[in-house]
């Protein structure tokens, strides 16, 4: 190691699924993170030093995440780690960071267990129980009391979302009339939907990702099921409309932010992202951006990059104005912030309302 006074840069690690099954999420969050680091450096860096982002690809593969994170920590000597979108891979990295005393910020892992690993693990997104509650509250506010649930049993995210939705709904006056399941990659949902049709639900919760949810909407309309569909942030992709077409019109889903939100923070972010990558950012990009910004803010406040001090500064993050809302990190190291409900209208995701925590 070079003597500390010679260190002119702050090395920040990032691991993301740049290839493999969830590459679109990984690519998005990586773009957001990289843009944030460029911005921080253009503004003079932090503590008078440039931030250097070292990214590693975990190929969306279990087992790989643990390896690349160990590499970042022991070879690149990173001071903090940003990543991952998928909870399963964040859960591999978290114990390693905890043991090494390196603060880790996950942009979009919503499984509650991630930050339960230890006091060095943070996240800038809301968690599954909150999103489940938001969706349940929304359904009840629309007076949709009879709900059918379709869960993707292959995705931990979908299983969790359905579980927490059901928990909130059933104690607040709603009933789950049918619970059906499928596995990612399925193409035919007619059997499940026929069973659902028989129970005449007011609304159908499709808690999985966009591809299957689009197909579910399509086939529900074919079976003359008129009930609207609702879903979580896993729907956030243009593919939802490409797959579902007219069938997803009038469906609602919860998300981290809306590109339609007139808030200046969001509009500036949109413009900058568009200028840099010539495309519209999605929630993963915004969360990736926020994770890097929160880290830079904490390093500034800590005045150092030493693990324990940086951890304390991160834990003290309060009312930080991020793209995805005002972020306060609570004692469980999760972000307390609002969610937005979006409606699919004319193939666009229209902002409906903001739901406070």
């Amino acid at each position, binding site marked *: 190691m070079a003597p500390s006074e010679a260190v002119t840069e702050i090395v920040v690690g990032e691991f993301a699924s*740049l*290839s493999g099954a969830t590459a679109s999420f990984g690519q998005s969050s990586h773009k957001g993170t990289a843009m944030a680091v460029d911005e921080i450096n253009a503004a003079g860096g932090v503590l008078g030093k440039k931030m250097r982002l070292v990214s*590693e*690809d975990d*190929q969306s593969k*279990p*087992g790989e995440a*643990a*390896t690349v994170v*160990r*590499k970042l*920590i*022991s*070879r690149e000597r990173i001071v903090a780690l940003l990543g991952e979108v998928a*909870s*399963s891979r964040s*859960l*591999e990295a978290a*114990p*390693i960071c905890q043991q*090494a005393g390196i603060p880790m910020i996950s942009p979009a892992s919503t*499984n509650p*267990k991630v930050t339960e*690993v230890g006091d060095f693990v943070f996240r800038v997104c809301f968690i599954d129980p909150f999103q489940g509650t938001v969706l349940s509250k929304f359904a009840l506010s629309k007076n949709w009391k009879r709900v059918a649930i379709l869960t993707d*049993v*292959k*995705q*931990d995210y*979908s*299983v*969790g979302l359905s579980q927490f939705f059901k928990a909130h709904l059933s104690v607040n006056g709603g009933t789950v009339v049918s619970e059906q399941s499928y*596995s990612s990659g399925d193409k035919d949902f007619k059997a499940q939907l026929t069973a659902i049709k028989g129970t005449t639900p007011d609304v159908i919760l499709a808690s999985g990702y966009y591809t299957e949810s689009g197909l579910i909407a399509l086939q529900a309309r074919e079976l003359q099921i008129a009930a609207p569909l609702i879903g979580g942030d896993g729907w956030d992709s243009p593919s939802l409309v490409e797959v579902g077409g007219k069938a997803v019109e009038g469906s609602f889903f919860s998300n981290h932010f809306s590109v339609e939100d007139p808030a200046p923070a969001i509009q500036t972010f949109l413009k900058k992202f568009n200028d840099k990558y010539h495309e519209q950012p999605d929630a993963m990009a915004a969360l990736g951006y926020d994770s890097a910004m929160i880290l830079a803010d904490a390093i500034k406040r800590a005045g150092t990059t030493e693990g324990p001090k940086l951890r304390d500064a991160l834990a003290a993050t309060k009312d930080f104005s991020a793209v995805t809302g005002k972020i306060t990190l609570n004692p469980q190291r999760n972000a307390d912030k609002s969610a937005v409900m979006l409606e699919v209208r004319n193939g666009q995701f229209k902002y409906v309302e903001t739901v406070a925590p």
Partner: protein
Amino acid sequence: MGSRNSLLLCVLVFAVVSALFTGHPEAAWPLAQIDDYLLNILIMAGINVILAVSLNIVSGHTGQFSLGHAGFMAVGAYGSAAVTQIGGKPILNALSFLGGAAPICMFVLSLLVGGLLAALAGFAVGLPSLRLKGDYLAIVTLGFGEIIRVVIQNTEAVGGARGLTGIPAFTTLGWTWGLAAFCIYCVSALIRSTYGRGFLAVRDDEIAAEAMGVNTTKYKVTAFVVGSFFAGLAGALYAHLIGYITPEGFSFLKSVDVVVMVILGGMGSTLGVTVAAILLTALNELLRQAEQYRMVAFALLLIVLMIARPQGLLGGIDRWLQARRNRS
């Protein structure tokens, strides 16, 4: 290969792995100076060696093409994690009379449970399916591997699709390579025994073997059970290395990874698949610089190797060594 030689081979393998990585300034000999990343790779290499050598009993020595190895690895991983994670506290209390050795004893117990459960699964899968041959068997083992995974995915007691977290990190370099050496030794010794001759007879000509009075089903099932046992051990080591397991980690693709190691190393050559397992683990890391072209480079290397050496890297080397020994 003589069993004394195979023990020697184990030691040699260990030395070569360590030496391979000493090029990096931070990872000079002795082993104590190896950093966390390198340690992780060395352990992964050891786990892959166990997987490849154990699949080699089934595919290489006995000639039964199996695509369900990851399924047995999953049984071992979940079985052992059930002992240390779910049953951790009561078992530790029950073992408290052992004092400081209690955690290690629990780990040994979990390894045994993982291995034996996997062996049991191997028996249950093997008995009906090993009456099939070739492609049919491949499909059936593929199916069973997936069934095991889907059952775990839908079992809430072990975390279901969300996976099992908080598995204690017991796996060390010593345990992994110790067990890898044990695995190599067992397989080498087994192949030299009456059973091993039976395996080879089944592989070379099943009809002829049957005509000579060899109970082919029995030998096939035996090979399957032994292979599954070691796959279970590898799974247990993996679970206690990463600390978090999810059914997705034991998909069909993982089975294919192991099959590639066996084919690349040379079907039926213990030395060959050992080298291939280490090489492929190392290659995966060395190609990291290539980033998104990594998988392309990886695939190209496989194609070139298969054209240049269809029998595998070291296919037939065991026989060559044997012949040389006989001459001298």
